[in-house]
């Protein structure tokens, strides 16, 4: 039993699990984007896809056993520390993602108030 648990703790196995999980999440988002017509569901799907990409970045760049890259009592050298860049990048990307989603949903709400429509299928104003 213990061996099985230790097997799961090995970076290669752990990374594959994270990778497979994130990719499944990505394709769930892609499916929602293509199959759903409701505006809010589309934004939710986009968010799920985005999240999957963040997860890949964070999960693969970190290995179990690494500590936060902060020099403090007891830690005076940058050894066995995780790479701080992916985390900084993910934070930035999350902020951007929130801004875009907020903009999109606020537009969707305004559009609903004006027209009563919620589906991209009903958006025909711009066709000839």
């Amino acid at each position: 039993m213990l061996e099985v648990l230790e097997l799961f703790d090995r970076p290669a196995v752990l990374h594959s699990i994270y990778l497979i999980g994130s990719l499944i999440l990505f394709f769930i988002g892609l499916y929602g984007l293509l199959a759903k017509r409701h505006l809010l569901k589309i934004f939710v799907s986009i968010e799920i896809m985005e999240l999957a990409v963040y997860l890949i970045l964070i999960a693969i760049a970190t290995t179990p056993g690494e500590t936060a890259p902060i020099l403090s009592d007891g830690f005076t050298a940058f050894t066995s520390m995780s790479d701080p860049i992916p985390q900084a990048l993910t934070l930035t990307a999350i902020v951007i993602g929130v801004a875009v989603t907020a903009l999109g949903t606020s537009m969707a709400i305004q559009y609903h108030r004006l027209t009563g429509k919620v589906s991209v299928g009903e958006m025909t104003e711009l066709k000839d």
Partner: protein
Amino acid sequence: MTLHFTPVWFIAVPLLLAFLAPLWVRWRLLMPVLFSAQVALFVLALSWLPTVRIAPILETIVIAPPLGIHLHLDAIALLLVALFSFAGAIVSAFIWLDNGAAHLRERPAFILMLLLIAGSNGMVLTGDIFNLYVFIEIVGVSAYALAAIRRDKTALEAGLKYVIVGSVAAIFILFAIVLLYLQTGQLNIAALAQAFGNMPAQMQLLIGLLMLIGLSIKAELFPFNFWVPDIYRGSDPEITALYSGVLVKAFLFVLFHLTFILLADPTVARNWLMALGAITMIVAELVALRQNDLRRMLAYSSLGQVGLITLALAFASEATTAGALFHMVNHTLIKVLLFLLAALMLRQYASLKLTDVHGLSRTMPLAAGLFVLGALAVLGLPPFSGFISKLWILKGFADVQTFWPVALILTAALIEAGYYFRWIRVFYAPTDALPMAKIEGEKTLNYAPLLVIAGLLIVLGVAPFLLEDWLQQAAQALLGREALLNAVLGVQP
């Protein structure tokens, strides 16, 4: 103390002015600030030309590359920055002089337009790939909001479509950047270029495909451009002038900059990108034939020109690249002219359907005349600059005995002639109806920015040598992978 001009000004000045918007509102200076900022940046860009000709300017922010972020101002970046500021200046002058479109002269539009310009400049200048993503998103968010700024049904629909398609594109770009970082541990584009060749071939292909999908959506290449005409139809024509003139050019540059620098041998991607460009061009021109709304027609015409520029850039020879860059400049000028004309016509006619604009030349003779001029320039007839740029592209292909693009480009020009003359015939159709009464606020001063563009199209057509050196250097800078790597990574203290 003297002020020290650096490339970061092209990004920082518009951002700072945008954040100070409440001040300009209080002092009633919004439009003057918008206009003079663009003019100042344009003059600044021109004043740098002699320096950049000798050697590209590298500006390091805090830490030297490859660890820190740096801005890279070479001949091509300078060309595009100057072009963007010029297009921005023309559009803001037009909005300023114009009496209609009040929502474009308020604070939100002011801020968003400055952010759009700042982001586009940043995309062209930055040497760091994550920084590039941030600028892509800045440009994206301001473009989505600008599309919906009129806040009526059509504008909101355009904005929603844009935000959905645009954020999906951004996810693909982010995915490619994430994979690049995980594979190489680098974010600096030059350092990535060195490491790219050592990656497994499948990984290279995957990253390339993700990048291509993301950037093709943003740069409006077939088959990812289905959304473009809707957006161009729903947004204000003044704004679409910026999309077609600034945004698409910035994304095209990013696409080809990354292709040429990441791939040690750009011929790997040559056939694919050329095919993409050729299909985009032909499909868009054919569909444009059937459009019954002026803005949709202009959107498809814009896509056709983007396809032509892609076709010529992808060939990766110096002659076609210089021609393509010249055509980029021309296309920006022409499409800004045509979309601003569409804005004026829309004000007068309320609808730009083919059946509604019969005999337009009797009511708006100057607008119809300028439309003819723009159409001739886009078709590439002398003495307009479009002729020279198409000639350079065709000559570039013919010199190396590649004739299929030549045939395609000429066919596309014929189709283009078909639909532009269809509209011109309607404008000049004889009608019994009296000329429409001019709507209030229509004045000749509105046409001043448009006449500037028209003049420039003729000047560049008669005297292309004014830009020739600069364009040659820009083409060398775009294709010169080694030089760029050396400049960024070679000499480091």
